[in-house]
């Protein structure tokens, strides 16, 4: 009875469901890239194309990126890292998953009936009075799904506060826990604003109550304020846990503590807090007051500091480490590169003078894909690679995982780097047809997307393969430090045979390392 809805089981449920929604979102992405091979827009009708990019955004953001790391990796690993038997509210945790599935059902309902064509941003008055698609069902789906995220956030905050093992003080926590805590703060404080915004959208669309309708004194820009008050912090919901994952991987494969632990820990909190102050930078040319634009631009610059702190500390951690050339480590270093490019172009977008030109162009598309795909999605994949032995008890193939790392990295850059150039050239986003001089760059991008797609399919195969044929991983295949590596793989019903106590700092590697066996040889040369 206790094992019914333990967080590990829920993590597996999420793992399966986010994989499905990622595949749907990915299918849409493929179709989008195919359409953009030619400038004329001859593969789909324009309204079909509009539905494609809308559903791609909705699926990827609300049903993949936001739950991916917190709900899959967090649910599995967080209680283990804390030395807890479970999260604080197991039933609420299960309710989160049900809400997620109910939300997804609404969204899938609209999807099979033809989808939505408003863009994932649902800007009024397009979404309220001009779109004839299934906006209401999708908005309802996102609304319900929002509460799933809120409940996960509540659960993690309380779990981190109240369920830590004896001796596990705040500054002994793994950095993934800090990142998850910061993420949960955002989920709890930002998501309800999206909820109420969608309620207003629903009322306006269904009952003609013109909350954002200028004809009765409403202001469409207010919708954008409310929407971005959630959706900018939501970006940090997606990226913060990933930053935590990278800290874990780097600490494990350099076998040393993270350089500047406290700075990295607090930078997560700082990113979460600053994330609430900068939403107006999505609206510099929207018609918001130029004074507000300047306030938001100045505040946006603050985010550069904690982000830079993280990157430089990771870099410094490598110094005099004992670096293992494992798949997750390759990935993590690739991640840093992509995150740096994504972050720096974000700084450009936060700069008023540049944003006027590149706002709503492919420059923005490229920027947020560097953060969302290059950052969040990849970190999720690498987190799976890192904790797969813990989750399943099996090891995957070294050769094939290295190959997929390479494919993803090359494919990703080939897909999205040309889009920066397209953006500065002036190619607007959400265009179904485009002037012919942009074609070469679009073809490059589509070619890259094909490589990227291959890079996603390969891990799917060797992960499945490992379930049956992979070598047994043992407790600690990487020789990493952390409570999750002290229990069996996969962990027993109450997570630990003997509830642990902690008497050392985070990432304190002992000599010789604590590995039970030397399985990374298997990882390297297997298959």
């Amino acid at each position: 009875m206790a094992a019914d809805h333990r967080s590990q089981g829920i993590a597996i449920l999420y793992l399966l469901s986010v994989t499905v929604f990622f595949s749907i979102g990915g299918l849409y992405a493929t179709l989008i890239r195919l359409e953009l091979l030619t400038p004329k827009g001859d593969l789909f009708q324009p309204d079909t194309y509009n539905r494609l990019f809308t559903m791609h955004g909705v699926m990827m953001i609300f049903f993949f990126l936001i739950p991916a790391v917190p709900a899959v990796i967090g649910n599995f690993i967080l209680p283990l890292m804390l030395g807890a038997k479970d999260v604080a509210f197991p039933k609420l945790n299960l309710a989160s998953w049900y809400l997620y599935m109910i939300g997804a059902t609404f969204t899938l309902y609209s999807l099979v009936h033809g989808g939505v064509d408003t863009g994932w941003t649902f800007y009024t008055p397009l979404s309220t009075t001009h779109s004839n698609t299934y906006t209401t069902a999708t908005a309802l789906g996102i609304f319900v799904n929002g509460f799933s995220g809120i409940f996960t956030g509540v659960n993690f905050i309380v779990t981190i506060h109240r369920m830590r093992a004896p001796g596990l003080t705040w500054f002994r926590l793994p950095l993934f826990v800090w990142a998850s805590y910061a993420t949960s703060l955002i989920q709890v404080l930002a998501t309800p604003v999206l909820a109420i915004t969608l309620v207003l959208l629903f009322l306006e669309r269904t009952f003609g109550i013109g909350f954002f309708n200028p004809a009765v004194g409403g202001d469409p820009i207010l919708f954008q304020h409310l929407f971005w008050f959630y959706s900018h912090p939501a970006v940090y919901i997606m990226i913060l846990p990933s930053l935590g994952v990278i800290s874990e991987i780097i600490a494990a494969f350099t076998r040393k503590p993270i350089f500047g632990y406290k700075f990295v820990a607090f930078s997560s909190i700082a990113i979460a807090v600053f994330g609430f102050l900068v939403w107006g930078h999505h609206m510099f040319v929207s018609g918001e007051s130029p004074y507000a634009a300047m306030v938001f631009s100045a505040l946006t610059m603050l985010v550069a500091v904690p982000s830079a702190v993280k990157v430089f500390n990771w870099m410094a951690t490598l110094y005099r480490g004992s670096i293992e050339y494992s798949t997750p480590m390759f990935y993590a270093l690739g991640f840093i590169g992509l995150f740096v490019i994504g972050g720096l172009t974000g700084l450009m977008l936060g700069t008023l003078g540049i944003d006027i030109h590149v706002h709503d162009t492919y420059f923005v598309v490229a920027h947020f894909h560097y953060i969302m795909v290059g950052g969040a999605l990849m970190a999720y994949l690498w987190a799976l690679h890192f904790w797969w032995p813990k989750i399943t008890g099996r090891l995957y193939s070294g050769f094939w995982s290295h190959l997929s790392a390479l494919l993803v990295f090359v494919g990703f850059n080939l897909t999205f780097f040309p889009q920066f150039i397209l953006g500065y050239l002036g190619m607007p986003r959400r265009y179904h047809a485009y002037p012919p001089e942009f074609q070469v760059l679009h073809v490059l991008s589509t070619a890259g997307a094909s490589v990227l797609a291959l890079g996603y399919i390969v891990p799917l195969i060797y992960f499945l393969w490992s379930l049956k044929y992979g070598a047994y991983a043992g407790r600690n295949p990487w020789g990493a430090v952390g409570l999750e590596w002290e229990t069996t793989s996969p962990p027993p019903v109450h997570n630990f045979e003997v509830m642990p106590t902690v008497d050392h700092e985070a990432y304190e590697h002992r000599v010789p390392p604590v590995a039970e066996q030397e399985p990374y040889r298997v990882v390297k040369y297997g298959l």
Partner: protein
Amino acid sequence: MKLFDFPFFPETASTTAGSVDALFFFALAVSALFSLLIAAFIFIFFVKYRRQHAGDVGHAIHGSLVLEIVWSVIPLAISLVLFGWGAKVFLEVSTPPKDAREYYVTGKQWMWKIQHPEGNREINELHVPIGVAIKMIMTSEDVIHSFYIPAFRIKQDVLPGRYTSVWFEATKLGTFHLFCAEYCGVEHSQMIGKVVVMAPEDYQIWLAGGVAKSPVAAGEELFSQYACNTCHLDSREGRGPWLGGIAGTPVALVGGGKAVRDDNYLRESIMLPNNKIVDGYQPLMPTFQGQISEEGVLQLISYIKSLDGAGAAERARTDSR
């Protein structure tokens, strides 16, 4: 499609485009420098500190306050420079010169309707003279659009229910893209047009080729057609205030408070007349929302702005006092 014959950089064709580009190149240089620096360090460490023996562990180095301060303060300083420079360019790009020629733009699904000060109208094309500051006063009839000319590095959302504006001064003859940059529905990608920059004399010829009634003249007709002139009398004894010379001036409102009578104020006063009542008047004016087209409102406003502060009758009265 020729494989290597494609642009890497957009054309630079307005007075402000250079400022945007300069800022962009600065940001690009900073970004490249940091990216290369980080990549170089990672690569060197990655090679140099690779694991030699299975049992090795790294040196436990816990951090350095000095380094943390250095790599917090430097990015902060650079990003504040970006902010300051960016704000300067932003103000430059968003503040039109006082003597700019005013064009009216109405966006609707899925076309741009443009009217010149001389009254010429065009759809999805914009002919402008080179070397003249031009201000676009824009509104939308339906959803949000965005007026974007990449070669001029300008963009501004076009909203239903109010005015936004943007300005440029073209520096190159030729034809450039005009895009809608805010997603606006099914044919969003067809809401495109071209901007033709012409020599002033060619522009005059082009203007002469069209049949035109100036917005002021059209506005004057509307002013009597909608019976505005029955209340807004230049004798100042009408039930509504006289409108001459009010554009851009502040006014006291009923219930305290002040408002500057800019284009948005004038528009609001026509569409939602009772939102702001000038001190000393009654809220009697009916709304004209839904009865007058967005273009009509723009024409009315340009007529109101053309009115003299002191009408003839007014001047006579002041003299006699």
